């Protein structure tokens, strides 16, 4: 009996899934902005993976510790020097210039992509796992458990996200991992709510009722029937959430609560050089531009995914 339902439903699910994902992908690829977003993210991921090959210098080493550089008359906050563009040959080449501690800005930017992507994916992953478990349990079980979980989520939502993150980091102490956890914690309620809403709408569907009538266990129904059908809004929310997470992490680092120096995290770099906005604008421009770029990319992709996966927008 159990075996029979198993094969039957897998067949049905794979058929449904295929067409849904297929449609979504096709529609996603029709949107230029989503493709642009995917392309930027793809490039960023490649930069992050191949950072050691792309970087020209060690991102945390001061050029004063490199004898041939130190003797060449370089000064801190030197603007970009690119030999191809007419920078004198005797001056060492630094594609994006030097920062206040005489480190190569280009190499720091390149390595910085690792931290931003890591923070984005890790904190959102953390939030999705915890949030969707809480939301699914709440939505599926209902009753007082649902009430307790969702009221806790409401309390979390009542605080401005960044402020709560700052409070958490203040308690746990500054650092990249703590900032990441703080951002993860403050974004849990969003996923819990999305998950709960979809679970509630899915659990009353006929195929779930049918499973229940056939005697499938609660856990089985939740994991095999309800969750897969509730996951689409989570993907959209997650993609957009990565953008927010990267931005929040940059804000925390800017405030000195996230990645600690000399980590080449973009927010930290921006915070450390904020006084130089008039005297050495390149030190503020490039990290700021990179944060903007990656956040924009995730937002574009998230918007595209939402349009592609939203069943109400019937095309």
């Amino acid at each position, binding site marked *: 009996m159990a075996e029979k339902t198993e094969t039957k439903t897998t067949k049905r699910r794979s058929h449904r899934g295929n067409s849904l994902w297929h449609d979504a992908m096709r529609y996603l690829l029709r949107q230029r902005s989503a493709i642009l977003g995917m392309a930027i993210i793809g490039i960023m991921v490649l930069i992050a993976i191949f950072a050691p090959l792309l970087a020209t210098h060690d991102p945390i080493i*001061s050029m*004063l510790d490199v004898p041939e550089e130190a003797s060449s008359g370089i000064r801190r*906050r030197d603007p970009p020097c690119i030999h191809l563009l007419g920078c004198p040959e005797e001056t060492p080449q630094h594609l994006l210039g030097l920062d206040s501690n005489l480190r190569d800005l280009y190499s720091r930017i390149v390595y910085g992509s690792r931290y931003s992507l890591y923070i984005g994916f890790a904190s959102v992953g953390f939030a999705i796992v915890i949030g969707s478990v809480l939301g699914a349990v709440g939505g599926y079980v209902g009753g007082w458990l649902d009430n307790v979980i969702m009221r806790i989520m409401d309390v979390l939502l009542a605080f401005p996200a960044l402020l709560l993150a700052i409070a958490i980091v203040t308690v746990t102490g500054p650092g990249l991992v703590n900032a990441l956890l703080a951002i993860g914690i403050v974004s849990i309620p969003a996923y819990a709510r999305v998950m709960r809403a979809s679970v509630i709408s899915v659990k009353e569907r006929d195929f779930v009722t049918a499973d229940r009538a056939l005697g499938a266990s609660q856990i089985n129904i939740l994991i095999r029937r309800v969750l897969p059908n509730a996951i689409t809004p989570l993907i959209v929310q997650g993609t957009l959430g990565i953008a927010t997470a990267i931005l929040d992490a940059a804000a925390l680092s800017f405030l*000195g609560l996230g990645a*600690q*120096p000399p980590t080449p995290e973009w927010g930290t770099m921006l915070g*450390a050089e904020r*006084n*130089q906005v008039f*005297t050495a604008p390149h030190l503020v421009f490039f990290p700021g531009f990179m944060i903007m770029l990656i956040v924009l990319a995730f937002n574009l992709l998230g918007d595209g995914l939402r349009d592609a996966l939203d069943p109400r927008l019937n095309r």
Partner: protein
Amino acid sequence: MKYLRLFSALLVILMLAGTLVACGPSGPEPTEEPTEEPTEEPTEEPTEEPAEEFVPMSYSAPDCDYGGEFQTIEAVDEYTIQFTLCYPDPAFPSKIAFSAFPINDTAYLEETGGGGDVVDHPIGTGPYMLSSWNRGSELVMTRFEDYWGEAPAADTLIFRWNSEAAARLVELQAGTVDGIDNPGSDDFDVIEGDPNLALYERPGTNIFYLGMNNTFPPFDNERVRQAFAMAIDKQRIVDNFYPRGSIVADQFMPPSIFGYTPEVEWWEYNPELAQQILEEEGVLPGFQTTISYRDVVRGYLPEPGVVAQDIQAQLAAIGVEAEIVVMESGSFLDAADAGQIDGFHLLGWGADYPDATNFLDFHFGRGASDQFGAGFEDIWAALDAGATLADPDDRYPHYIEANELIREHVPMIPIAHGGSGTAFRADVEGAHSSPLSNEYFGVMNPGDREQLVWMQNAEPIGLYCPDETDGESLRACEQMHESLLAYEIGGAAVVSGLATECTASDDLTVWTCTLREGVKFHNGADLDANDAVLSYVVQWDAAHELHVGRDGNFTYFNALFGNFLNAPE
């Protein structure tokens, strides 16, 4: 039925409101009573007292065994105060001119209990009196019309603050402030090139050092500290991160102040040897530590974050992994003084008065805080010997010895004497920078404007300066409070203050100061010798009921005058 329910609900609400109202005032009531009572009594008494008869006040230590400098502080008559010291002190005038020893009104001290309001609403004798202190935004002072000296030109003096050098400069350029402290290292040329602005360079009468606390291993090992002294390339730090006019420090004393001994040479930069020693002592490989600092710009440390990262990089080069810890300014100083900071800490010192005792005794003397851990008896002995002699030629050899011993024990690594400066709008007359960082705004005239706005690095912590050590607080106090003597404006020579003169006995142990007559406090009270005596006694006697202050440390008194009377064990 419906009405009954409504009525009962209303009744419940009313009762709740009633209990709230009843509970509310019962809290503040008892606290109000005691504060009100003393305000009435002492303010009335002193106004009557001088009319009757002046009863001179005298305060003595039973003997000199308690380890401090004062034996007796007494009012001889209404305008004469006499200090009897346990040992001769040639720097005594320099010390009593310092703004940590202002003269407060007796009645006001008693009224406030020596803390609380005296910290927030100071009453002094200075040219400006406090109008309002909006914490977090500005400190507003107005001209004191009954000031004994020359009245200041500007009606209002406003202190504002911003920790960012760039932001301070922008405000100055925009004309929203008249003067700023510590322009950024890169902005010196910008200011000089601007015809509307004027730059006043301040010589490096300060020291920036890398402190270590010798109670935490491995800093308890002298060889390890010596190794770290060899591992830091000071020239590189000064060349790259300090403004012009800064010099590499090869000892704690800055060259322009007595106590600087060129005979003593610091450890030579030798990272290979440093690494080798650290390996021999078992510290390396794998030593992890911290570099703590406060993100506050001072003349001795114009760019804390950048310098901290460079020191981090230099330590990394010999295999020491150091994590950077940024702390809030107040808690950083408190933790440092209490000897709680493990690892390295970045701190500095600016001259308060031009003598070796201000630098060396404060940090390494008997009365020094636990900042560097346990003190060194041989340094104490050398400093005690130097501090009690009168003739500079006799004192000098003791300071050679002291500086040599500091080099030997390495309680800290001196790095730089930072040049800094102030910048004012070009039309501000009398603008200056002081080598002691105590710019005096009473002599500045902002032209046709009625108010003078000064922007410094940070907000004052408190305005009862006996219990402050922070230069930003002291500068604010100096506009409102006065000490027995004063420093020449824009210089370091001692001139008359509330006392017209102070004379010493031949052996420099009895100092007699004659007070100015007709000096009034901001609350209208007249200055007499008893005010001066009490102002010292509340600092001196740790058991005195008015020995309260902001946090009760009275760090300067302890450091400059050896010890408190009745010091807690």
